[in-house]
Every structure is written in structure tokens, then in C-alpha cells.
């Protein structure tokens, strides 16, 4: 699969070409995001994601607000007043494609599945709109698509980023990554992206940008088993409205079920014993 296009993201870097079977993902380097929102537009155009409401959010240059069924990329604009002036942090958020995906765990219909690229995708035609996945997501990525007049078949259906599953199958990189003019959004095999991100972080630290950090690059800052989309941030995750330590709520499900089963067994055993003794 040869799906990276354009120049390499950083001077002197080489392109990373994923090969079949690679686990692929996004590395979003917010330190070079210019907030142009080309990712949002490219995503909507390619995936036919509808415009639901044209309204002013009173939130800097952000009129998208959050990820939802109708916004699969969301550029946040965080204005900060600092001692030496102002800062304007921009970051393009996206579904994290968790390695331990709660949405997938709770989906009763099998509409959400893990692809051969190790990404997590909702099949609109299988989803029954039960909505279990919505509270399950630790990042608030999923919502149901409601009231889109020209797409009635997808009404009430949960929707989110597919990492352009169709494009990946066709040998193209996701639309947002291709549209990004500064390569703030990079697509490729995750191990190579993680290495590159670490090098970029080292450079920023050398330049004195001490607050720079990686988010979700490995399993150390989360309990979602690692992510297929990770970020280089210039401040604490909370400033970007990210959970400091996201947890897959279904993470302990197996344990809980086992505990429940054990408890039930104890109860049943107790009841059985009582019945047996009562019979006596």
C-alpha cells in the first residue's frame, strides 16, 4: 500500500509508507497546525457528512464545537493570555480509534467493528441507533445523526470518523491528512509515527517549549489500551478538553462479569444450600 503523498512532514524526514497488515493511524502535531480547518472540510466532502446547523458558537474561531455524528474532525481554538502576550492553541481533534474500544464492546448489533487496519468503524446500515456507544466513549466522540433531511437513511444512526476506511482500501490516505497543508495531520504506520513524534517533541523541548507533550502516543497516559490517533499538545490535555487519563469504561467488564458470576454462584449456592437445609 502506497498511501502517503506530498512532501515529508519535517525537513530531512523521509516518507513512511505503510505496508499491508500495518496498524495505521494519525499523528496530529498541534505545534504546526494553522487552524485552517481544511481537515474538517475535506472530511465532510469525502465522507458526505452533512451540515446540520449554521450557527455562531461564541467561542473564538471555533464554530464546530465538538466531535459528533456530523463533525468527524474538529479544530479547537484555545486563546490564552500569558505574561509575554497571547497564545492561540489550535488542534485538530478526531476519533482516537482506541485499541480497547468501548464503543465496539457495547455495540449490541455488531455495527461497530475493528478493521484490518486496526481502526474502528461504524457500519451505518447495521446500526440500530440504540445509542449504547455514546456514553461508552471516554472522549465523547460519538453521537447519533438526527434530522438530516437529505440523508433520511442515516437518521438516528451513530456516526464517527472511519479513518476513511474506503480510501485506505483503495490505497489512499485519509482525506484530512491529504488536505492538511502543513502536515500537522500525519497518517502512517503507528510505530513509525510514534518515533517521529518523539523526535519532534525532543526538538521542541530543546527549543524551550517545555509544555509540549505527547498525548495517547502509548499506553502510559490512558487506560484505553493505546490509541490509533495520538497528538502532540502544547499544554495540558485538559486545556484541550481532553480527559487527563481516559479510561475505557468496559475495561473491567470481563472482571465485573466474572465477579458478578462468582457472586451469583455464591448466592445460588447459598440459596441452594438454604433450600436443601430447609427441605431437611
Amino acid at each position, binding site marked *: 500500500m502506497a498511501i502517503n503523498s506530498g512532501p515529508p512532514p519535517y525537513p530531512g524526514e523521509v516518507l513512511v509508507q505503510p505496508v499491508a497488515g500495518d496498524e495505521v493511524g494519525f499523528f496530529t502535531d498541534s505545534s504546526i497546525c494553522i*487552524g*485552517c480547518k481544511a481537515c474538517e472540510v475535506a472530511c465532510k466532502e469525502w465522507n458526505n457528512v452533512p451540515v446540520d446547523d*449554521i450557527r455562531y458558537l461564541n467561542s473564538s474561531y471555533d464554530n464546530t464545537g465538538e466531535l459528533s455524528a456530523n463533525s468527524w474532525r474538529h479544530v479547537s481554538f484555545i486563546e490564552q493570555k500569558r505574561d509575554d502576550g497571547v497564545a492561540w492553541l489550535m488542534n485538530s481533534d478526531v476519533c482516537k480509534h482506541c485499541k480497547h474500544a468501548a464503543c465496539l464492546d457495547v455495540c449490541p448489533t455488531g455495527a461497530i467493528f475493528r478493521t484490518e487496519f486496526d481502526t474502528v468503524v461504524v457500519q451505518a446500515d447495521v446500526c440500530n441507533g440504540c445509542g449504547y456507544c455514546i456514553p461508552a466513549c471516554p472522549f465523547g466522540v460519538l453521537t447519533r445523526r438526527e434530522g438530516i433531511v437529505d440523508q433520511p437513511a442515516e437518521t438516528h444512526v451513530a456516526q464517527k470518523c472511519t479513518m476513511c476506511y474506503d480510501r485506505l482500501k483503495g490505497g489512499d490516505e485519509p482525506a484530512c491528512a491529504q488536505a492538511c497543508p502543513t502536515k500537522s495531520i500525519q497518517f502512517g504506520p503507528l510505530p513509525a509515527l510514534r518515533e517521529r513524534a518523539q523526535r519532534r517533541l525532543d526538538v521542541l523541548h530543546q527549543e524551550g517549549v517545555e509544555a509540549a507533550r505527547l498525548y495517547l502516543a502509548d499506553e502510559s497516559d490512558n487506560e484505553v489500551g493505546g490509541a490509533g490517533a495520538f497528538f502532540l499538545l502544547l499544554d495540558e490535555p485538559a486545556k484541550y478538553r481532553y480527559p487527563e487519563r481516559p479510561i475505557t469504561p468496559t475495561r473491567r467488564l470481563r472482571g465485573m462479569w466474572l465477579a458478578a458470576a462468582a457472586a451469583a454462584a455464591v448466592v445460588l449456592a447459598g440459596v441452594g444450600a438454604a433450600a436443601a437445609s430447609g427441605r431437611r
Partner: protein
Amino acid sequence: MGSNMAENHPVGFQWVMEAKLKGAPVIHVDPRFTRTSANASFHVPIRAGSDIAFLGGVVHHILENDRWFKDYVLPYTNAANIVGEKFRDTEDLDGLFSGWDPAKEGYDTASWQFAGMAKANSAPEGQGSAAKAEPSGGLGGGLAGAEPERDETLQHPRCVFQLLKRHFSRYTPEMVEELTGVPKERFVQVAELLCANSGRERTSAIVYSVGWTQHTVGVQLIRTAAIIQLLLGNMGRPGGGIMALRGHASIQGSTDIPTLYDLLPGYIPMPHAEDLDLQTYLDGHVKSGGGWARLDSYLISLLKAYWGEAATPENDMNYGRLPRIDKDHSTYRTAIAMLEGKVKGYFLPGENPAVGSANGKLQRAAMAQLDWLVVRDLFLIESATFWQDGPEVAGGQTRPEDCKTEVFFLPAAAHTEKSGSFTNTQRLVQWHHQAIEPPGDCRSELWFYYHLGRVIREKLAASKDPRDRGILELTWDYGASGPKAEPSAEAVLREINGWDRAGRLLSGFAELKADGSTACGCWIYSGIYADGVNQAARKKPGSQQTWVAPEWAWAWPANRRQLYNRASADPAGNPWSERKRYVWWDAERAEWQGEDVPDFNRTKEPQYRPGEGAGGDAALSGDAPFIMQGDGRGWLYAPSAVLDAPLPPHYEPHESPVRNRLYEQEANPMREIYHHPLNPYNEDPEKYPFVMTTYRLTEHHTAGAMSRNVPVLSELQPEFFCEISPELAELRGLEQGGYAAIITARGRIHARVMVTNRIAPLQVAGKTLHQVGLPYHWGQRGLTRGDSANDAFPIVLDPNVHIQEVKAATCDIRPAERPKWP
């Protein structure tokens, strides 16, 4: 400076980001902290309209601290030229230069000339019959007479170098702080960074956009930047230069092959009414030295492209058929003429003056005086429907039935629906191929104008009237074919490239002849179809060629990627440094070599000196890199070609709450003012104490037709807003997310309030100065609607190029009710 590159040129900004990742400092000087500032090394907030004070301060810093590049400045600029005795500077006349004629509101530039030289022939006097002189064309750098007197020691009190020093002597860091609001320490830091990153080993580039041009001192602003870049040795060298980022696709192309009234293709000046015949015209325009000395071959080849066999030496090459100008016919002057009932009909192809031009109210009133108006656009824009749903109709001031204008709306094809070229900021011509058929009645511009011409010619076919010959004799065959009879864009490109009598496509403008044996539609584009190949359609990836990438598309002229690149070598022809090696003299092969196509006579050795009476290229020395200037030198001092100043002074904007601290003369004395009830100016700074400025957002495109009608873009910036500081919000009781009225003598416009620290108040002349930011994309139509920021701005223009001052004016701002937009 004067550019919000990340927001308005995001694709080009990737290269700035790459330079920054390689370690280049990126400085953003702008009234607002924008998405560009957020990605710059640092941001310097500045008062809108004070840029010359800032740049003049940089010139002062360079000269005072001896940071100029001597080995470059001495041979390559006119620093050593001695100016005539009668010249008086703004330092002598408190903001005016010698030669000021208050009655004519213009300058007699005789006293600006170099010692021992006559007035240059591009000086304005004697041209045109307008009250104000009206030069035309792109002929910079004309000089008359012999080599001027020079003092290579730069000690002569009237040499350009000393005049420059004196002119900017009061532009100290303290004065910069006083005028611009930039703390002097911050200013010195910027000036030092520029100096430190210039010289043999390094170069700095300056990027500007309409944040510089849309002022009454726009041309002088860019002149100041040019002086800095010449003093630091940053012109004609890789990584240097001044980049004018153009506002939309192929706006560069529409200047090269112009939609401007005073130009013929390739910056050939439009003839004036007095230029009765070809020889008179050529005598008045041909320069003795430099590239413009061959103007005759460029113009005659153009006449042959227009009229083919019908242009003969016997009929003066049909020169008499060319239209003439007698005065300013620029867009604002034309709007005013409409208002006065002097214009019958008007074409608006891809332009929306009801929203995009200064003083929208006047623009709409002007169009309502036409007999007919043709609008060609992708969408039904405000300029096509102003009579029906404009703000004046909504406000009850006019009624649709009172508008006498007959409006024809013709749907246009988008760029994906036709083949053609885009010429970008760096003169790169890139071909695009048609992807889909235009829907319904939509047609390309080429289709429209070709068939318009065809029908007019058919209607005139029987005419014996001599005035119709110019149309009937035109060559008018561009291979229209297919079900829609679409002309071939490549046929047009071939005509632009030019051919000889045998029909062979020319290899470049060097082949052009003045004897009528060549035809060429635009001399600077000649070579774009060399060898019968559409060179603009080349798309060889950068990874498969050198770093200059000469095989990606085609750049005018002659596929040169960097103009005046002879200056990348020292006078002896050697690179200034290994690091900045670009074009150099190869003594063994006795020719210029380089990474790029040398912008110089290939075989002219560096030691060449012109003999007595030499003309054209032969008149320029082997160490004169600026070959389109009459003397081959970079002009620190401009005795001609600019009307309003030979050296740039800081003038206040026409509307300014601040007094000019430097001169008694407040604003540009030559700025074009238009007094009319529909164009009132803010007179009282007490009443209008704040500075307002307009700009664009990434999410929208210019006057908005191409974005306000697109749902995925409209939702990203869904409402007209104004940006103000928390301090101004507090002062005027404005609330975040509430509504405000922006008040001027032109009326009130309403906007959502965005309170942000990104537009900080400044300390200017001892007082707090507040600025109001206004994106100008909105109008009455589309998926997102709102007041148009340009309705708040008056018409007041730069005298050289007639560009409106919408980057700095005054206003008040008050809380308001939610406006009644649906």
C-alpha cells in the same frame, strides 16, 4: 507585515512553516494576533496605518548602526547618485517635497532628478489631460540622459545615501514607539533580527498582501520595504525578496494579461490620447537602457497578434486601432462616473463591488444609474440583486421599481469545469485541465468573450464605418468546437506565446522583432509554448528534479524562478557565499550559469562597461543586475515612476485619531479624495476615536459568493463579527457574543462582538488606542448573511494605483440590538 499568510494563503504558508522548522525566525507584525501570529516565532502588534513609520525605523536602524551590505549597495543601487541642487526633502518642507503645486495637487518632479540629468520621460507632466497627472504602464525605472554624477565615497551631502540618512534621521526607536505603539525594545529586536539574517551568508524575505496596498500610501509602503531589502542585500537572491501575495487565484495573471485600464499585456503602457501614432508613442515610452529599450518589438508583436495580416507598416501596424486613455479610468473613478450618469453599461465578471469594494452604499447607488449591467458569476451575488434586496431596499430608502438598470445574470463555469491557467504570486503559470462539464447554461469566460466578439463581428460585418475596422480586422479564431462550441484555451496560450511568419512557435521573447515578422500576445509569457509544448502543464514532482524545480509548470519570464538573480553573485560574478550560491559567472565557458535561468545577458561578462551612446541591454554594465531599470540599479531613491514621493515619508491615514508626529503635513498630500454626499468622511476624531481595519478569514473567500453559498464553509464562520479587546468592551459596555454597531459618517453596520486579547490596545502618542477588526465577507445573500464591512469605509485612494484605503479608518462602536437578518 500587511499579510495574514496562514489564514489567507494556507497552502503557500506550508513553506513558511518548513522554513521555521529549519530554524528561520518568522516575525509577524500586524494589528491583530492572527493564525499567522500563532505560528510565528513572535508577534508584534502595531497600529493600523503606521507601517511606514515602522519600516522607516528599520531603515534608520540599518544606517545608524552601519548594518547595510556595503559590497552590494555600492555597485547595485543608486546610493552613490547625486541628486540635483534644487531638491528639497520632507525634512526641509515639513512633510512635502520640492515641486509641490497646491493648485494641481501634484508634484513637478524636475527638482527630484539626478544632477546633470534631464527629467525622465516617464515623469507624469505633460501626459494626459486630467487635473492630476495619469501615468500608465509598468515601466519602472526610466531615466533620461547620461550616467548621473556619482560619489562612490557616499560622502556628498546630496548623494542618495546621505539623503536617505537625513530623510529617516528622526525615525528613531522612540519615534517608532510613539507612532506605531510598538515598544522600542521590541522594535529593535525585529530590526536586529532582520540585520542578523541578511548579508553574504543569509537572506531575509518580506511578505506583504493587501494589508500594505490598501492605504493612501500603499505604493510608498512597498517602496520602504524595497529600500530595506536593497540596503540589506536581499534582492535577487535565494530566500530574499519581497513577496506580494495575491488575493485570489490568477489575480497575478490578470495583471500580467491585464484587466487594468492603463495596461496592455506584459505591462506595456496603454497609449494616451496624445500618442497619435506609433512613433510618437515609442518616442515617449522607450527607455534608453535596460529591457524596456525593446518596447517596440514587444508592442509591434502584440499588434500583430491582435490584427495579424491586417497590421502592416503602411498602416502603422494598426496602432491607430488601439483604445487610448485620457485620464484615470480605474474602478472607483468609473463608479463615480456611473453615479454621475456618464456610464451606460457595465460588465462584472467575477467581481462583487456591492460587498467587496469600499463604500458599498455608493457602489450600489452607482450601479443603479446604469442602463444595463451584465453579471457573470457562479452565484447570484449582491451586485446582481442590489436593486431587489440590498440594504437600501430593506431600509426603505429605495424601491426595486425605481432602479432603471436592466441586469443580465449569466451563470459562469467554475475552474474545474474548464481548462486554463492560473498565474500565482511567484509568476508561476500552472495549467489546469477540465474535470467535468459545466452544468446547464454555465459557460467559461473564454466561451463568453469569444462568442460575444463573434456576434459583434457578425453584426458589424457589413459596416463601412472606419471605427469598426479595429473589431472586424481582429484575428478571432480559437478553434471553437464541440456541442457547446467551446474555444480552445490552448489556442489562446499559443497566441500568447507567439509565432514567426512561418507559424513556428517562438522559444522566448528574445526572438521578438519590431519589423512585424513576429506575433506575440504577451511578451513576458513568450516561451510558455516553446517547442509546441504547453510548458505550464508540466507537473514533474519536486523529488525528481533540482531544488529550484524548473520543470514544474512555467514561470515568466523565460522560466526564471527568481527575478534579478544576477544580484545573487558579487560584482565579479562569484556567489556571495557557498551557502547562497544561485547564479554565477563561469569564466571558462564565458557565460552565466546557475541553479536557475540567469536573469541577465548570458554572455555579458561582469567586467563589461558600456561604450559611449550604447542603448538597450548594451547600455547596462556587467554588474548592473536590475535589468528592467533604465540604469540597471536598485532604486533606493526614485526620481520617477512614483508620483507622490522619491523617498517614502510616514503620513497618517486619511482618517486617523492620531496627529502626524513627524510633519505638519498630516496625510499623503496626493491622496485621492472624493467629496460626495454618499461618501462622507469622519472629520472629528473625538467623535470617531477608534481605528478600524478590514481583513479576511480562511473560511471565506473575498466578497463571499464562493463561500457563503457553500454549506461546509458557511458553518465554519456563520456570522459577521467584530474583534475588540476586553478593554474596549469594558469602555463601551460591549458583551462577548452580543451585538455592536460600528458607527461612521457612512452610517452604522452591525456585527457580533468577539472580545479577545488577540487585539490588544496600544499606547500611541501617550494615549491608549483601540482598534476594531472587521472581516469583510458578508452581504445580504447566501447561507450566512450580515452587514458588509466595506459599507463602513469611504472612498479615498492611493494616487499611484487608485487603491482604496480600507486597512485604516476611524469609527466609534456601541452596543446594539440584534440586527434583523434572517
